[in-house]
């Protein structure tokens, strides 16, 4: 699969990454090498093989609906780049 510089731009918007102009070409080439590995997988014959979504043979993993005390707020806010002791603070996101 061919990765164009336009695709690199689109992916950087989706992932909120600002990529320096001069790195776009190198990034496209690198991504293409990674994605081309899918071509190797694609070459295998998978007729009659169920699509796999999870590698471990476990299912129905659930917990009972019982409340456990939440964490102290200060501990949750500890590593946040911005907070006011009550809420996480982020750059303006609502209009």
């Amino acid at each position: 699969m061919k990765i164009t510089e336009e695709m690199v731009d689109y992916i950087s918007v989706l992932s909120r990454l600002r990529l320096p102009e001069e790195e776009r070409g190198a990034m496209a080439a690198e991504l293409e090498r990674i994605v081309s590995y899918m071509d190797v997988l694609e070459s295998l014959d998978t007729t009659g093989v169920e699509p796999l979504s999870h590698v471990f043979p476990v299912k129905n993993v659930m917990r009972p609906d019982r409340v456990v005390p939440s964490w102290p707020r200060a501990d949750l806010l500890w590593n946040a780049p911005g907070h006011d002791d009550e809420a996480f603070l982020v750059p303006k996101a609502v209009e």
Partner: protein
Amino acid sequence: MTWETVIGLETHVELATKTKIFCSCTTAFGGEANTHCCPVCTGMPGTLPVLNESVLEFAVKAGLALNGDITRFCRFDRKNYFYPDLPKAYQISQLYLPIVRDGRVPIRTPSGLEKVIRIHELHMEEDAGKLVHDPWLDQTKCDYNRCGVPLIEIVTEPDFRSAEEVVAYLEKLRSTLQYLGVSDCKMQEGSLRCDVNLSVRPAGSEELGTRTEMKNLNSFKAISRSIAYETRRQIELIEEGKRVIQETRRWDDNKDATFAMRSKENAQDYRYFPEPDIPPLELSEEYLDHLRAGLPEMAEEKMTRYQADYGLPEYDTQMLTGQKALADFFESTVALGADPKQAANWIMGQVLGQLSARGLEAKDMKLSPRTLVHLIELVRTGKLNRNTAVKVFEAVFADDGDVDGYVKAHGLEQVSDPGAVAGAVEAAFAANPQSVADFHSGKEKAFGFLVGQVMRQLKGRADPKAVNEAVRKKLDEAKCGLDK
């Protein structure tokens, strides 16, 4: 040209579980910002979400009650987007294998139209947090108390043709989910939220027009008004030769209009893929049978049963089953021995009257069925007359007070002694000879006046029927006297 409105609904319902969908934090409403949170629901790296078994159970029950097909092999998917209301930068939802498909909801509108609304799918997902912009700091505050609260999203086919049908469906959905006990469906607390997809087309056309999606609809009234507004707006655009643009619009309740929301920089590309952290679910036949057997009797079944077993008119059964708590209350009074029609009359008249006067819902009522049954029994045995009983009811309603104590303290027992009634009749006749004469000269009105005088003498505590009879008898005797 005549136009037809075509509407489809996406309804988000918060499930009434005690804990969040993937962690054990409480789902209690309110609380100080970020106090109902843990590393899982704040999206800390290295945490592992584990599904709450009640979420699956509630979703399956809802699916069964909406006559849907339950997906036996079911999975969660990851919906990726960067927005600070979701600290993980993705929402765990279901796209490829939703838990329920192809449901059917029969509705009936107030104008008598009956139709079936098809449910496209019902899936499980997590709610997002709350963002508040702080203009002073020019920053956005994130509160993740609601983040991870379990939701089911119910998506209909574009089967609605009017606001009336939409409201009838939502009322049916709300009643169904409340009877199941899977959600309290409080619109004002956001536990039932609705997005309306609407387009218009020339009447008779089979093709769908370009639709818009309306958000921020917090009441049935807002839904009805926004449908009227948006229908008019789209028709005007087309009739002016313009095009409807597919977009998301926000309803503004104060301005009574919808407004285009600023489109995100890019078209949405959620890059869904199977959620690796949640192993798949495989539902056994036994599991489904168990839940099927545990489904409660729904409003419609109750209506049919009340008509068949108790001979109640359809109107009564509809009133009684409107709120589950009210139907439960009615059934308890009947189980305690009350006459069903008497109980129904008291509940529709006095109970609903008091609830609406006090702005309460049936489930918040303290009055016990036993108290009402006792009151009905006092009337039946002639110890209280009906009017006095209503006064007692109003006095004891709020706190489920002591009926006998109140009756005694206020001297309200009905006068059942025939001698006392006869004495009062005697006195009333003696004091109002003119009325007696008026009656005999053909003025029927005088009869009511005399009865009123007797009741007054007895302080309203006598059985009105007995007083009527006594007055009638006394007048007949007096008439015989005149004839002679």
